[in-house]
């Protein structure tokens, strides 16, 4: 009979904080880098040049339709084939950034296209400079549209970072796998690791809800949406 016992894995809990830090670090770096990729991507997608629009669309469609796991293998094996010595962490970071960048591009685009053309013309005819137009008219509205899907994407990035374990990055999922293998206490390590992921995801959720609350209050007209 299996006896559930967290004490059985207590000697491995000391390794947990280090693993969580790697998960967090990988996720944060991915969020930052994919934001940059997303900005470049959306500039391509809304560009006047057909070639750039095509590149942007192709990037988004290809990356959204391939499993992240396959992207990780592609980057890992591909870089090795090119003779570049890139460690597991950086390979995972590149793959996660490529993947998240595609979603980021779509989120940014969704925000931008929601602003009617007339608002640009109205602002310019009021004598606003391009910088003022974006600072005071476009970005505040875009942010109100994109903060919710951004939160979802951030949760997706934290969850996706677990796949880095397949190429040997020592993050949370690897901790679970290694300790499970050594202690035969898979249920316990699964519950602990799952709890940490749920905690991280719900933490992001709370920040997202709080952002929504603040945005709603600061909206012109005060929260009629």
């Amino acid at each position, binding site marked *: 009979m299996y006896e559930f016992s967290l004490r059985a894995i207590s000697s491995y809990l000391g390794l947990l904080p280090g693993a969580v830090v790697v998960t967090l670090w990988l996720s944060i770096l991915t969020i930052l880098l994919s934001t940059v990729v997303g900005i470049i991507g959306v500039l391509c997608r809304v560009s006047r040049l057909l070639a750039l629009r095509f590149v942007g669309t192709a990037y988004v469609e290809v990356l959204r339709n*391939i499993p992240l796991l396959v*992207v990780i293998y592609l980057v890992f094996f591909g870089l090795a084939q090119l003779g570049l010595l890139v460690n597991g962490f950086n390979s995972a970071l590149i793959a996660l950034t490529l993947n998240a960048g595609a979603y980021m591009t779509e989120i940014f685009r969704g925000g931008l296209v929601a602003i009617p053309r007339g608002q640009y013309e109205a602002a310019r005819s009021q004598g606003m400079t391009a910088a003022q137009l974006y600072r005071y008219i476009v970005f505040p509205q875009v942010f109100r549209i994109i903060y919710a899907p951004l939160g979802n994407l951030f949760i997706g990035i934290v969850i996706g970072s677990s796949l880095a374990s397949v190429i040997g990055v020592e993050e949370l999922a690897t901790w679970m796998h290694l300790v499970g293998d050594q202690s035969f206490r898979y249920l316990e390590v699964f519950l602990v690791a799952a709890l940490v992921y749920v905690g991280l995801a719900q933490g992001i959720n709370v920040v997202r809800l709080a952002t929504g609350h603040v945005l709603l209050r600061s909206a012109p007209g005060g929260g009629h949406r």
Partner: protein
Amino acid sequence: MSPVVAEYWGVLGKGLMTTLWISWLALILGGLIGAIVGTARTSPWRAVRLCALVYTELFRSIPPLLLFFGGFFGLKYMTGIDLSPFTAATLALTVVASSFMSEVIRAGLMSVGRGQWDAALSAGMRTRQVLRYIVWPQAIRVMLPPSVGVYIATLKDSSLASVIGYVELTKAGLLIRETTGVSFEVFLIVAALYFVINYGISCGGAVLERKFHFVH
């Protein structure tokens, strides 16, 4: 393309079929569970709504990779039942798909206005009849297009079955890599296959959306 890989088209083809099959199975099973959870999300009782919400949020916050491991090794060590990789993968995929489907189904059910409920109830229908004859026939049209998205997500998640040794498309790629020593080309082909299938499905979904475009 390296000629070595060309010999293994059969393995890739078989892997692709397995991928399509298991994700289809998980979508159907996940749809059934999602229908229960999604309906519970619109329940008049707060406790039922809360339980359903916890289910949805929980399985969206736990990485699918953990569910595959947990289902495969966790259940094995806990109960002594030796789940086959297929059973464990189907279980894990179904749980993930059901949490996404519950959201889709909830949104579909909510899209049918309160007024229709009131009208049907005041016409003497029972709750079950209202759901069966009024709400579901309309809601299902709203649910279809996003279900295509869930299918694509499930198809992509099915690649994780490779970590517990279930031979679907990704695992087929890994096996060919081990046998031939060719890495990059193999995964380029695997990626291309996923892309063609998923892009095809999403184009089909766009057609479906136009066909079923429906305003209450």
